[in-house]
């Protein structure tokens, strides 16, 4: 490494001031010619130019650091927590601003709509299963046939089956069970 000139000439002072401009290609015309002439004559200037070039290359070669994952996790956890904590206040502020802006009727309608829709959608009972009228007729015919068979059996065996037995034990339960079907 050539020794730095302890008694620099005006030329070397000027060259020292323009090394970075020379490397960036910003010297033109007579300035560039002057610099190149000094570069050819002065070992010290050549070493300084090499140093400046190496510094630029070295700095440019440093890779970008990668942010650790835990930093992102903490940042996003903070944002999410803040977002959910502040949500009720933001909603309240929004409604308040609507009210202040003279939108009370619109606000009332919006609230009413929300209540009606939610009650309709949330508490609506389940519809009973659809039953075809042919099925109902068939069920009634089956009941009549069963009663007929019972009466016939009573006559054949000589055992009388009284109305006080058939009514509560057969007719009424069957009638009760058939009631929902007949309503359809």
């Amino acid at each position, binding site marked *: *490494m050539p*020794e*730095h000139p302890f008694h620099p000439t005006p030329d070397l002072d000027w060259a*020292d*001031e323009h*090394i*970075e*401009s020379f490397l960036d290609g910003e010297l033109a015309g007579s300035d560039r010619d002057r610099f190149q002439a000094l570069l050819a004559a002065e070992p010290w200037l050549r*070493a*300084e130019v*090499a*140093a*400046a070039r*190496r*510094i*630029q290359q*070295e*700095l*440019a070669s*440093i890779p*970008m*650091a*990668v*942010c*650790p994952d*835990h*930093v*992102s996790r*903490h*940042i*996003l956890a*903070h*944002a*999410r927590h*803040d*977002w959910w904590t502040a949500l009720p206040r933001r909603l309240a502020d929004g409604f308040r601003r609507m009210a202040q802006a003279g939108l009370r009727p619109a606000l009332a309608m919006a609230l009413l709509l929300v209540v009606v829709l939610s009650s309709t959608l949330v508490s609506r009972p389940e519809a009973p299963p659809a039953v075809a009228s042919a099925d109902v007729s068939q069920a009634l015919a089956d009941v009549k046939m069963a009663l007929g068979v019972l009466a016939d059996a009573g006559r054949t065996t000589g055992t009388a089956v009284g109305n006080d037995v058939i009514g509560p034990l057969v007719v009424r339960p069957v009638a009760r069970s058939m009631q929902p079907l007949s309503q359809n």
Partner: protein
Amino acid sequence: MNPLQFKSLVDLHRDRVYSYVLHMLRDPAASADVTQDVFIRLWEYRGALEEERVLSWLLRVARNACIDQMRKHRVRLSVENDEVSGIDLLEDDSPTPEGAARASLFRDRLQEALDRLGEPHRSIVILREIEGYPYNDISDQLGLPLNTVKVYLHRARKALRHHLGEVHRHDYA
């Protein structure tokens, strides 16, 4: 801006911010803390920022945070007393173990010279020479006129070069 939109901004800029802070502080743990604080401030100010200026804002806030941190803790690398250093190391680029060691020493000396730069020279060197931002972006990030950025960069490069030369002369005096 909801947390999902915020996450995309964090993913986009976190490495740039962390890298800048790490070059300023040279301490990974402190750099992680500062980066985290900077993005939390971004979340708090999210309604007041235009998206295309977010990175400039982040780097400006990061720089102020780094300056505060350095004032508090005086983060500085200890200067090693190696016998070989400075521009003398420029002349050997061979891929031998000795050449690699000399290149490593050169980087250490360069880092030492960078640490000695004051603000805003140091930030300008990091943003321009390491991170590769255009002059206009640096002007916006640091809130300095474009010509001032160029003048400061010129002075900073010269200071780095002279520092490496001084180390060389000191070692061989």
